[in-house]
């Protein structure tokens, strides 16, 4: 259905998006999105959609959210000029520092917003899924702050490679449930969270961590994360006196990227690039590069691009970063790719780890392995566009990745290779 889209249709879809017409009332971003859910969850989704419609942009909710974002979560986050990387790469490099946000990543913007919404809706408990553990930690923290019990589903593979985050969640009072079904990573954790919700659709609030899933999540998460791009755009104009020539961010489910990109979509001079997990290479099962290599289908309640075989079975993914290790992607990214407004590339595990090392060594910033995917793309862009200005979404810090880094970059007797 999507191959036949002509230039005029693409332009019209972009116009609708910029005018705030997406998603439409069915949760569609052009052909993508929607709400493919079990009948048991339909009333819960109706309630959530209604709460989002009436509450999210309402003045007292926004005032409460913004106060908490400032006083508790540490916003606005800094916009940093990265002088050493600029010199090395030959372009002007800026980081939007979501790694400085409370709990260490952009995830807190969404988790806090949803926890406050859950409280307003009278939920008795909050559930969440997590991959890298950042959304789990953010949700645990937000629930502790607003006073709601929190249960986090996490694949046992991820629990092993992100063990510091498991401890953090538990310290903040959350129950962490190991997921042993399916591929035992993020995708299985989402399956399990949905199964929990189906069992208690009335009292439970599902705090979904990325801009994916059934409507209204892709919209809700985008709205809560768009603060990244709004702040960055204003900071850029104030500090550099101009917009960036390029904005770049990593894409797994796509919440940090959509939040970073949204404020720039209407700036035609700004090139926008998303970088996916290229894993070991381009073969099916070797990466998590959904936008670059996927085909349309339905997973976790939304019609989007998926890594799947010819029979519609969803494929296992591989990435060194747990947070990008997901076979689908938010439906709005599928549209942005389709209409050509955003270009999506991939970065492979090896070059990503090199980027972690380079950024740490030359800028004193240890990036999350997820965020380092954007660094690979930024370096390549910078070398092709000398003297130009690039804004990198530094979505999170790499402290949580120490177990992985110990066995990769820090292997060989603890000496950087």
């Amino acid at each position, binding site marked *: 259905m999507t191959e036949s889209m002509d230039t005029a249709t693409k332009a019209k879809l972009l116009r609708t998006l910029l005018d705030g017409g997406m998603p439409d009332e069915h949760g569609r971003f052009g052909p993508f999105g929607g709400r493919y859910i079990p*009948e048991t969850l339909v009333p819960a989704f109706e309630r959530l959609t209604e709460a989002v419609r009436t509450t999210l942009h309402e003045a007292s909710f926004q005032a409460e959210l913004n106060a908490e974002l400032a006083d508790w979560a540490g916003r606005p986050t800094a916009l940093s000029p990265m002088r050493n990387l600029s010199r090395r790469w030959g372009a002007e490099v800026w980081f939007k520092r979501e790694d400085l946000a409370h709990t260490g990543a952009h995830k807190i913007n969404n988790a806090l917003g949803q926890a406050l919404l859950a409280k307003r809706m009278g939920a008795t408990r909050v559930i969440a899924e997590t991959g890298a553990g950042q959304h789990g930690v953010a949700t645990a923290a937000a629930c502790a702050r607003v006073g709601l019990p929190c249960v986090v589903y996490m694949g046992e593979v991820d629990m092993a490679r992100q063990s510091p985050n498991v401890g953090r969640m538990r310290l903040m009072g959350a129950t962490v449930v190991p997921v042993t*079904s399916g591929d035992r990573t993020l995708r299985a954790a989402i399956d399990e969270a949905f199964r929990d919700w189906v*069992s208690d659709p009335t009292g439970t609030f599902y705090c979904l961590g990325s801009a994916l899933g059934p409507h209204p999540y892709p919209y809700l998460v985008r709205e809560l994360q768009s603060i990244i791009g709004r702040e960055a755009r204003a900071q850029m104009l104030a500090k550099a006196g101009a917009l960036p020539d390029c904005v770049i961010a990593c894409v797994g489910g796509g919440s940090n990227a959509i939040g970073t990109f949204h404020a720039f979509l209407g700036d035609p001079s700004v090139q926008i690039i998303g970088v996916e997990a290229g894993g070991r290479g381009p073969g099916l099962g070797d990466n998590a590069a959904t936008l670059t290599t996927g085909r349309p*289908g*339905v997973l976790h309640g939304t019609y989007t691009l998926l890594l799947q075989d010819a029979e*519609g079975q969803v494929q296992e993914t591989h990435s060194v970063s747990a947070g990008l290790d997901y076979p689908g992607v938010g439906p709005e990214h599928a549209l942005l790719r389709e209409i050509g407004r955003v270009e999506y590339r991939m970065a492979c595990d090896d070059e990503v780890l090199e980027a972690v090392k380079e950024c740490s060594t030359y800028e004193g910033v240890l990036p999350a392995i997820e965020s380092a995917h954007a660094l690979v793309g930024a370096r390549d862009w910078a070398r092709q566009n000398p003297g130009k200005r690039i804004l990198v979404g530094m979505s999170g810090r790499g402290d949580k990745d120490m177990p992985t880094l110990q066995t990769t970059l820090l292997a060989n007797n603890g000496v950087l290779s």
Partner: protein
Amino acid sequence: MSQTPADRLTQAIRDVRRDRVALVAFLTAGFPSMTKFRDDLTTVAEHADVVEIGVPFTDPMADGVTIQRSSMGALSQGVSLHWIIRELAAMPPVKVPLVLMSYFNPLLAYGLDKLAADAALVGVTGFIVPDLPLEESAVFEAELARYGVALVRMVTPVTPEERLHKLCNGAQGFVYAVTMTGTTGKSVEGTAKDLSAEVGTYLDRVRALSPVPVCAGFGIRGPAQVRLLDPHADGVIVGSALVETLERGESVAALLDSLRTGVA
């Protein structure tokens, strides 16, 4: 006017209901064994009134541990929707109506128009798609309608009154009444008096609105539950309990006959 596949499904349940509650039996295609699928299907069809064939999917989000396990087991042997259609085409026609149950993505991958045609040809009378609510179902329903195949609608205990009317209005084949919130495979606590009254009231409400038979599914594991539901439903759907019986290599006939007669 000749009888459509959907009508045949409706009629089969109605015919049985004159004597007793109809038994709809679910098995995952190719589980526990691909080579035994035809035999398993034949045996199940001899002891049930409708057979629901599960198309395995990697992410069965409405299913409990048993169906998750059977789905993975089937997929690891190479079961696919194409294989299921080929098997049905190759074996002697099953005497009772067949229904395919699948998550939406394998159906999309097959191609909805081609699937409707192929499924009708091999005797499929209806589809159950647990992640395809009414709002997203128009395209597939229209494809199936060209061949008179039913898209079975699901209702649940938390479905609001207004929506229940909308779902029952225009329902085809039968209405799948989910007995409880949660995933498949748990047990309806038929011993708790208040809960049994609740399930009964809910099913009576659905039955009063539905133009087609109402079959109760989720959590039906033994004759006690069938007796509990008998006064309130046209059919009962057994899934996880049958899959577990097949998995253990025990007698399918014994389980299904006990469910059919309501006697252990």
